[in-house]
């Protein structure tokens, strides 16, 4: 490689194919394979920390502040025991400042008991705002299961629909590669959940499903570039399929990073607010799962999806033959110009110019057909720059 490529950031910014991602794919396979192994092991042996929606139970929530200062968890526990004659499962204080709340969890209570409990809590603890500020939710154990079952069905349907869509839009190798990447994302995100021991709620399960969309979104953008770069590659001897794909990854690298950052920023805000202000709940659950999933999804679109697509593609003898031709040409060149590498020095450019031109012409014709001819204002433009290219 030429030394004049500059700093990492510059190479990233320009996207000249300076990072050999596809070529070193074995390394990524091993690395992510290991991570996958750890995640799967954690899911099998450690399991998940199932939330109230999966175990069933009642959760009562009240402001953690009374007129006479903060309410302690012990006081809440005592009041609960006094009111119902049984111990709550857990009492915890979440959130900060004025929006801090106490959460009491217990076995499922019926409506009458909840009413009794609320009155008792209000009398004993006198939270600011009185009885009306006490919230409660009761969930049957089967509810979480119902949601999970539906989520799994959604997952299946989703995979099928996406596979069909991608296979039609791109090619089956890319569809398979995209699915591999998505499965990888889901497993790792779930694994991280299991490892860290975050509570799993239906919102988490759903968050997991939306990651799929995100991960695929990234992959589609990269594949779109790969498709563009490899159009008609069988007839050319300039690059192999793998190299063209690598170039595509590099060209979209900055975009992938930008997209992920832009997508992650709001989620980060969501997480900070969700945890900081409210303690727990839908916001936090969704944010947490999205944060992990998005980061992984961006990585996998680069390090998993494209390399897998290349591997699948290279099983096709035609592409192998083409790669051999490229090699032969390079050997030839190398013999002519000793020591001069043929790769690396190429100007970044796309190979689908003809298609693009055709589309632009069509576009122009359409615009012309749709509106009143408006040559008058454009005359000066046309004179100033007749070719529209190489103006600098």
């Amino acid at each position: 490689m030429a030394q004049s490529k500059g700093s990492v950031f510059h190479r990233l910014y320009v996207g000249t194919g300076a990072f050999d991602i596809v070529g070193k794919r074995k390394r990524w396979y091993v690395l992510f394979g290991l991570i996958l192994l750890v995640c799967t092991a954690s899911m099998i042996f450690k399991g998940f920390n199932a939330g109230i929606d999966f175990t069933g139970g009642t959760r009562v929530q009240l402001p953690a502040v009374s007129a006479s200062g903060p309410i302690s968890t012990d006081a809440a526990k005592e009041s609960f025991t006094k009111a119902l004659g049984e111990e709550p499962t857990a009492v915890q204080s979440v959130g900060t400042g004025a929006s801090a709340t106490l959460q009491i969890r217990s076995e499922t209570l019926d409506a009458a008991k909840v009413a009794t409990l609320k009155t008792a809590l209000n009398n004993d603890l006198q939270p600011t705002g009185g009885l009306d500020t006490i919230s409660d939710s009761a969930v049957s154990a089967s509810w979480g299961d119902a949601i999970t079952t539906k989520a799994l069905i959604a997952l299946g349907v989703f995979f099928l629909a996406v596979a069909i869509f991608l296979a039609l839009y791109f090619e089956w190798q890319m569809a398979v590669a995209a699915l591999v990447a998505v499965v990888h994302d889901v497993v790792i995100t779930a694994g991280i959940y299991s490892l860290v021991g975050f509570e799993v709620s239906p919102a988490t399960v759903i968050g997991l499903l939306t990651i799929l969309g995100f991960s695929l979104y990234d992959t589609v953008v990269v594949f779109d570039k790969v498709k563009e770069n490899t159009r008609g590659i069988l007839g050319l001897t300039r690059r192999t399929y793998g190299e063209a794909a690598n170039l595509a990854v590099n060209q979209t690298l900055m975009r992938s990073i930008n997209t992920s950052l832009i997508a992650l920023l709001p989620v980060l805000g969501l997480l900070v607010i969700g945890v900081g202000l409210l303690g727990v709940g839908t916001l936090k659950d969704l944010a947490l799962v999205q944060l992990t999933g998005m980061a992984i999804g961006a990585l996998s679109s680069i390090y998993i999806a494209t390399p897998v697509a290349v591997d699948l593609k290279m099983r096709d003898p035609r592409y192998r033959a083409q790669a051999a031709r490229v090699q032969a040409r390079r050997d030839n060149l190398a013999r002519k110009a000793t020591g001069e590498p043929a790769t690396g020095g190429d100007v970044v450019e796309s190979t689908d110019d003809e298609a693009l031109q055709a589309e632009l012409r069509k576009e122009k014709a359409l615009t012309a057909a749709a509106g009143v001819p408006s040559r008058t204002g454009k005359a000066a433009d046309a004179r100033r720059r007749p070719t529209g290219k190489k103006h600098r």
Partner: protein
Amino acid sequence: MAPPAGQIRPAKYLGAFVLIVVALYSLVFFTGNGKATPKLGIDLQGGTRVTLTARAPDGQTPTDQALDQARDLIETRVNGLGVSGAEVVRDGTNLVITVPGADSEGAKRLGQTAKLNFRKVVGSPQPNAQPAPPSSSAPATSGSAAPTTTPSAPAGSENATAPTTTAQGRPAPALEGQPETSTPPASTPPATTTSAKPEVDCRKVFRGEYSEKPEDAIAESRACRQDPSLTTLDAQTVAQALGAFTCPTKDPLLGNDDPSLPLLTCDQKNEFKYVLAPVNPPKDGSVKDDDFSLYSRLSGEDIKDAVSGTDPQGAGFIVNLTFEGDGGDKWGKFTSANVSQQVAVVLDSQVVSAPNINEPILGGSTQISGKFTQKDAEGLANVLKYGSLPLSFEASEAETVSATLGLSSLQAGLIAGGIGLALVFLYCLLYYRLLGMLTILSLVLSGVVVYAVLVLLGRWIGFTLDLAGIAGFIVSIGITADSFVVFFERLKDEVREGRTFRSAVPRAWVRSRRTILSADAVSFLASAILWIIAVGQVKGFAFTLGMSTVLDLVVVFLVTHPLVAMVSKSKSLSSPKLSGLGGAVQAGADERALSAAKRAAVKEV
């Protein structure tokens, strides 16, 4: 070579967008109530939400018709609570009751929706206490009651000799009456168990032990506790079976009993045990249509109304009951045939009340009295009035959110969204400079459209924005912004290849448009599938996500691209410094210089 292609007229596109915005906001302000506020979910404004899941006996999915009917009935019931803004929505096999506002606790009791039947009490009910010492009077009473238990017995004279459980001739629910301690030694397994299916161990069932799997438990309960022979056996055996039976703490049969079979069950408080006759006669025609000696043929759907009130003839409370259709006729025939017998009001396989029939009650309305408290009477009236759902339900999720918590959730959501937006703005400005400004403008406009659509959807299809929905919007900021990133990065690519900003725009647009469309299609596909399949809050999340994706396309096509095209035509605005493309221009130039040098080097050799 390339002409200055795709001379789009930005004004046209922008005009179309303005038209859309104007149209949307005129709809917002001039239709409906004209208030520009979206409908908030109860987790944002406080209130109660109860999710009822239809219990599916035999694992069958309930029919749409039954679910819709149930929905209507529950809606009537919710409106009966006297709160405004209450809603009952069908979500798959779930019914979601939403009652906004602080005074919404009553909605939770609506979860007690059930199947109601009238069943004749066979034999004498027994207390659910552990084996009591047999009293001397027991054999005599149970013996005299025996004839009534045989279906072939002619209705009439013999029934009159059956003992009533109340002394003063005042009808009363059996639980208020003196328990008849006709308990034979409870340890002896009743004869009925032998006639049950061999693979089910009824002894276990009678001890209150059931299988883990709900379907198996239901099957076991049916096999043992709904044995058809229960009504044909002699009183002694029935009493024995009753004695051996233990009320289960959690009854798997709940709401799953077969109305054409007898039933062995307990009351709601597990205080008494009953053997009950079938509701409907077997369909084989062995029972004549006018034989009401055993079969009431009445279910909750025959009840028109039930009202509780004070007893005009004395202290205490009563429940007045009216039947509709031929319900009154059936009730008349049934009571005529069973004077002095008990009839049990069975709600979800459990006895709510078992009053005595004092006299034939003709004319379609009847009165139940007893030692009720006001609350009891009201409860029974409600059960009778509303317990007439075609399905039985189970409360899967019941949530009451206080208005303060709702408000702080809403605030938290808005702050989170605000912070998210601000961060994205900042990043775009730093990275894309002028193009970043366009991004921000597009995002803001997209927000404007989203808000209007939100208000309108709330009005038209009752779409409520909940916390999950807000999360969906926040997440979609990223997706929306990403379309711009794709476009701008393409623009950079083109500029890097040596084109001017101006000529790069149409080329970059054509190429990125394809990418944006396909990426948004995947994203939309994901949310659509989620929306169709998911339940509960998830639906809100999927909906907002999908909606933002579509609106994102509108904004990118009608606003962002035309604006960029406009900027590219303006000389001052399109300077590399302002556009943030300077780096790319420079990089492109460097690259070309480098490769030119290389080529030259190759030639020299």
